[in-house]
């Protein structure tokens, strides 16, 4: 059932983000619409009312979406009583950098350390995930036997297994391997978790890459592995970018896996587990809560603003193919 959307959705995602010259089509649409119905005046009035209703609704929606974010930002710079008394405003009299400074230097949540460790995890999971997935996706995309189909089905089945179901036995296996509460153990699990989506998207993409390239590489004397890494992999840039975006978001935001696999005893905190340790029990002290939350989401929001187009396009591609 998902196959019907696969071909159309991704280019459509690009369309909706880039807003190309669709205006032409729209104008044609308006002209046609008016011509079979002569009393154009009434038509315009109803569409004007419609437009007003639409934008009032959307405006209200936008306020609901943005006000929490705005309040979180300004509350990071205010003392407790100002947050409670006057939540929507910030004045020079109450403005202070004290609490943000406290949050940065907090012993409960080492922000800089958490950024570093989470970024390291994001980088390593991306690296290993792509290094493992790309060759196997190539083998699957080029193979014609039932073994190759079986291999694809094996990985795709991972899309339907909820992570929480495997977490408990994974703890067992990691304990068996002596990797529980260690960074390699966590990276191993997170990397495996990225394989299904990554292989699925890579294999779908590689099917569109002509076999001529493989044959040309073989004629030049390259073995299959060499041909893949030096000829095919460089062509995979767009789909690799999508995967990097998808995997980065999921690793950065993951809370349960680092909390369980790394565990408090390891002393290793990601942004999410660090926030939980810092804010979890002290949720009424807003001078701790808001600056900490602001610090936690700033990298994600900056990443979103910079990568907006790729993020939304990548999520559409990833989700509909899943």
């Amino acid at each position, binding site marked *: 059932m998902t196959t019907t959307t696969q071909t159309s959705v991704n280019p459509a995602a690009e369309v909706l983000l880039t807003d190309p010259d669709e205006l032409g089509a729209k104008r044609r649409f308006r002209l046609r619409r008016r011509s079979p119905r002569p009393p154009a005046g009434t038509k315009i009035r109803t569409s004007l009312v419609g437009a007003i209703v639409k934008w009032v609704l959307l405006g209200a929606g936008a306020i609901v*979406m943005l006000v929490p974010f705005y309040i979180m930002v300004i509350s990071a710079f205010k003392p407790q009583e100002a947050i409670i008394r006057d939540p929507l405003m910030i004045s020079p009299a109450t403005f202070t950098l004290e609490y943000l400074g406290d949050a940065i230097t907090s012993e409960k949540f080492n922000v800089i350390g958490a950024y570093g460790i989470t970024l390291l995890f994001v980088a390593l999971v991306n690296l290993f995930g792509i290094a493992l997935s790309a060759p196997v996706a190539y083998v699957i995309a080029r193979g014609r036997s039932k073994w190759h189909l079986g291999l694809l089905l094996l990985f795709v089945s991972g899309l339907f297994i909820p992570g*929480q179901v495997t977490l408990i036995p994974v703890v067992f296996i990691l304990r068996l391997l002596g990797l529980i509460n260690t960074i390699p153990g966590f990276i191993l699990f997170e990397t495996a978790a990225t394989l299904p989506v990554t292989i699925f998207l890579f294999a779908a993409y590689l099917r569109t890459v002509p076999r001529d390239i493989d044959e040309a590489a073989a004629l030049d004397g390259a073995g299959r592995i060499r041909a893949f890494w030096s000829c095919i992999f460089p062509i995979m840039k767009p789909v690799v970018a999508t995967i990097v975006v998808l995997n980065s978001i999921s690793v950065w935001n993951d809370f349960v896996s680092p909390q369980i696999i790394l565990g408090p005893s390891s002393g290793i905190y990601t942004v999410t587990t660090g926030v939980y340790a810092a804010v979890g029990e002290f949720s009424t002290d807003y001078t701790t809560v808001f600056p900490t939350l602001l610090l936690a989401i700033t990298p994600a929001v900056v*990443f979103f603003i910079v990568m907006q187009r790729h993020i939304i396009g990548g999520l559409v591609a990833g989700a509909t193919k899943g």
Partner: protein
Amino acid sequence: MADTVTTAPRALRTTIERRRPGALAVWRGRLPGLIMGGPAVLVFLAMFIIPMFLAFVLSFTDWNGYSLNFNFLGFENYEHAFRNPRTVDAAIFTAVVAFFGTILCNGVGLATAALISGPGRANTVMRTVFFYPYIISSLIIGFIWSAMLAPEGVVNSLLGGVGIPPLPFLTDVTFAKASIILTIVWSHFGFNMILFLAGIKSVPVEYYEAATVDGATRWQQFRNVTLPLIAPVVTVNLVLTLVGLLKVYDVVLALTNGGPAGSTQTIVFQILNDSFANADLGFGAAQSVILLIVTAVLGLGVTLARRGSEKKVAD
């Protein structure tokens, strides 16, 4: 340069192999494939496939998570899960969250998508505004709203400004349940909206032109052109949201921590609590296996139920 030198002997070798295709030659031909596929398969087996079967095994044991020893209990964990009122309550609350969450996320997502599907700067800005919470970890979304909805929080302070007494958003059972569902909808519908938008954009403009010539209103066009043509996207959205909401955990942990009085504990909240706080991973595994089966049945069920409305379009 080195490449061209190796060409001749390699070509020679393959012709010799073709003449006598012994077992060795067959394996040599498969070797690159095995080297390329092997590592991924090993990692995936170790961290996904074997654990899934191990979950069934562990669900029949009293494994505590610390040692590698355990005893087999038979079906005791499963009986416990079905008899335990806490688990049953958590299952009911999870079902409520999944049901209303799926309807609201997709209803609001589809409505906003239909409103802002046109071109233009304003529509693009709206897409970003509605979508951005999806990028933030749901744990942090939970903390943000927990601060907003607290008894002395921003929302109550704003309500006080217009003369409404404080509402128990997180401390009353019904309010807390509604708060969780609405927080999920707030942070998640943007994702559904993006998928719906992609679907709407893929509908050919000619269909709308034809409908306009026939005198169809905008609502009729949406009802009779857009909706049937995006039926596959609707299915994907419904299944993804439903399956995702059966696993809700982070938001609940941060927003209410399961309270008041355990009324907002979800199934995954129970699983992780029983497994790691109470060191009873066998019981946790049994509940996980039940969740896996329910998820699979509901996911397949919705997919098959939607097949009818997708077929209609194909005809």
